[in-house]
């Protein structure tokens, strides 16, 4: 089979993995080598669905032994199959890289022959890139759960980021839809990466020449809407992954209907709004100091689809508002709906050299459309309705619907602008 044909099949098969980030690594080039990592990551293009293209995202093989119900590559699916060689992957990566099409490689694979065999092929490919081609660009490598942990940790010496996909948020979900995947095996692989990342990091503090091990950390992906799991369950899982397993990112992928297996829910289109809300909630966990328990509880097990999670939290906690912009703690500024990290930082900077009125906020670029219901400036409130849950909600939902037109449904992938 021709290389171009393989690329077509194996990139089409990989695109449902939503992660594409190239951030978090400072790998530097060496004399005679090619490539370097940019800590903040770089997008090289944007596809027609508005997603950033940063890495060459391909499967090594889509000839899968498993039969996960939600997946196009399951053994029972009628789809064209192909498998690369390590040389082919290395050649494509280098040639795309030298033309600045990409930041690096995201290599994953179906289970080809068996777990260890697949992992060995992935390992061979990244070793070739690093050693023979002297490649120092970004590599995100999928760890195959069920492969020997020794193989997985060996691979970690060459990768910038690694990921083990959890796919389904609950054990029952896995049993039903991906019977060959086992929760303990997945968590064990994740846990062993976590441990090694920690160990190497400690060693590097003492011995500067310790090699790097997955310097950009690990990530995982959850499929949303293929099982009845609630958002509360999902966010609790994410919280554990961030806190106890030190994950860098959890990705959420709205289930795209691929088959009419009766075990799968009947939906005509992927639950994109829900996916977007989960990203926003995830953002709140990572950058805004929220906990899953604050955003969701037994009475509210799912995120409000009409309102973003910060606004719904604020409306349930109106006793904390309004906050005075000139004196509120930074962490409280961050909790004001409509105020993001950039705005909060600007406010914190500008108020050091003078007190801020409502007009000043506008001048420094803070968008007040939503924030005004939750703040005072020099003691004065600027909302056009009183501070009452129903009244404010009305205003917020109204403004959301007017400006949405599908725009709100698009904030997925690595760019989730959060206000």
């Amino acid at each position, binding site marked *: 089979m021709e290389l171009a044909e393989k690329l077509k099949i194996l*990139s089409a098969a990989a695109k449902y993995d939503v992660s594409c980030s190239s951030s978090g690594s400072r790998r530097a080039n060496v004399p005679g080598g090619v490539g370097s990592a940019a800590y903040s990551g770089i997008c090289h293009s944007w596809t*027609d669905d508005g997603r950033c293209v940063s890495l060459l995202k391909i499967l090594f093989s889509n000839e899968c032994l498993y039969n996960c119900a939600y997946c196009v590559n399951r053994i029972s699916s009628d789809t064209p199959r192909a498998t690369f060689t390590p040389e082919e992957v290395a050649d494509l990566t280098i040639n795309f890289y030298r033309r600045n*099409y990409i930041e690096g490689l995201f290599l994953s694979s179906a289970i080809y022959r068996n777990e260890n065999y697949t992992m060995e092929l992935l390992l061979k490919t990244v070793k070739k890139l690093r050693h023979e081609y002297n490649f120092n660009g970004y590599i995100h490598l999928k760890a195959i759960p069920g492969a020997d942990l020794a193989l997985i940790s060996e691979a970690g010496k060459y990768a910038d980021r690694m990921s083990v996909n959890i796919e389904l948020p609950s054990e029952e979900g896995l049993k039903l839809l991906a019977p060959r995947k086992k929760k303990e095996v997945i968590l064990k692989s994740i846990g062993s990466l976590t441990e090694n990342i920690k160990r190497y990091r400690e060693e590097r503090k003492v011995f500067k020449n310790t090699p790097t091990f997955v310097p950009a950390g690990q990530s995982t992906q959850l499929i949303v809407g293929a099982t009845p799991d609630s958002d509360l369950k999902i966010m609790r899982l994410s919280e554990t992954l961030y806190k106890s397993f030190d994950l860098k990112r959890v990705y959420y992928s709205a289930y795209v209907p691929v088959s009419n297996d009766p075990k799968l829910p009947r939906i005509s289109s992927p639950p994109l709004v829900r996916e977007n809300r989960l990203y926003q909630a995830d953002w709140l966990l990572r950058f805004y100091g929220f906990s899953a328990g604050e955003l969701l509880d037994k009475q509210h097990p799912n995120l409000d689809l009409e309102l973003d999670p910060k606004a719904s939290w604020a409306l349930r906690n109106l006793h904390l508002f309004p906050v005075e912009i000139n004196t509120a703690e930074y962490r409280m500024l961050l909790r004001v709906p409509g105020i993001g990290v950039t705005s909060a930082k600007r406010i914190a900077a500008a108020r*050091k050299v003078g007190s801020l009125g409502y007009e*000043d906020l506008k001048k420094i670029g803070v968008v007040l459309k939503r924030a005004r219901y939750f703040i005072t400036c020099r003691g004065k409130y600027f909302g056009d309705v009183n501070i009452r849950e129903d009244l404010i909600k009305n205003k917020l939902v109204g403004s959301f619907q007017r400006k949405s037109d599908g*725009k709100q449904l*698009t904030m997925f992938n690595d760019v989730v602008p959060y206000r």
Partner: protein
Amino acid sequence: MLYYIYDGSFQGLLTAVYEAYYRREEPFDITPENNFSGDLFARQVHIKTDGDKAGRVFRAVKEKISPRAIKQVYYVFLSEIMQRETLIYCYLKKGFKLGKDVDLYLTDKTVHEIQKVSQKVGREKHRMLGLIRFRKLVGDIYYAPIEPDYNIVTLVAPHFARRLSDQNWVIHDTRRGSAVLYNKKEWVLAQLDPGREFRLSEEEKDYQQMWRGYFNSASVPGRTNTRLQRQFMPVRYWKYLIEKQEL
């Protein structure tokens, strides 16, 4: 009204700032010579670019204001916006008075404008790190034409010198007729005729084809959203994007 006329270079502008302080004579405006339309009442001072004086201003900005300030000033200079010189001059005056705190005065018009423009330039630079596309030419040279809004070729050069250190490459601003050339050792800024033709290497078409194929199949059907795509990647940048060209 007093006009300072300088040669249009960054060094020249810093020299003009030096003179403004030294002469204690406030310029009404600082303009590059090729842009000066001289009005009847204009009194003109022609600034002679002086590396020594420019260097002193450069260091003074860095030390007495902040490293951030000198970076912002340089970025605003590269923006080529109208009256950038006067904006820069006003900002520096404030900066020398307020020190590094000047950048906290976000409600001040000059400070706000400086930050806004320099952020725009910074954003385009970052965008270009991704959007630049090299074509491999016969003779083993990788060539990338670009048409950025701002004059950012020198800002992106160090990144590629580090990253693609073992290949010869050229990044060509075809609108401004300038280019950075890299020879596996160092990069230089040079003039390069916009109309020049280049011959592609033999394998180039194959990789371009594969990249286009990859790009087109990476989009998930059912999630098409070209408005979002254009927001991140404005159409004016598509001209030189391999993936956006028909064969």
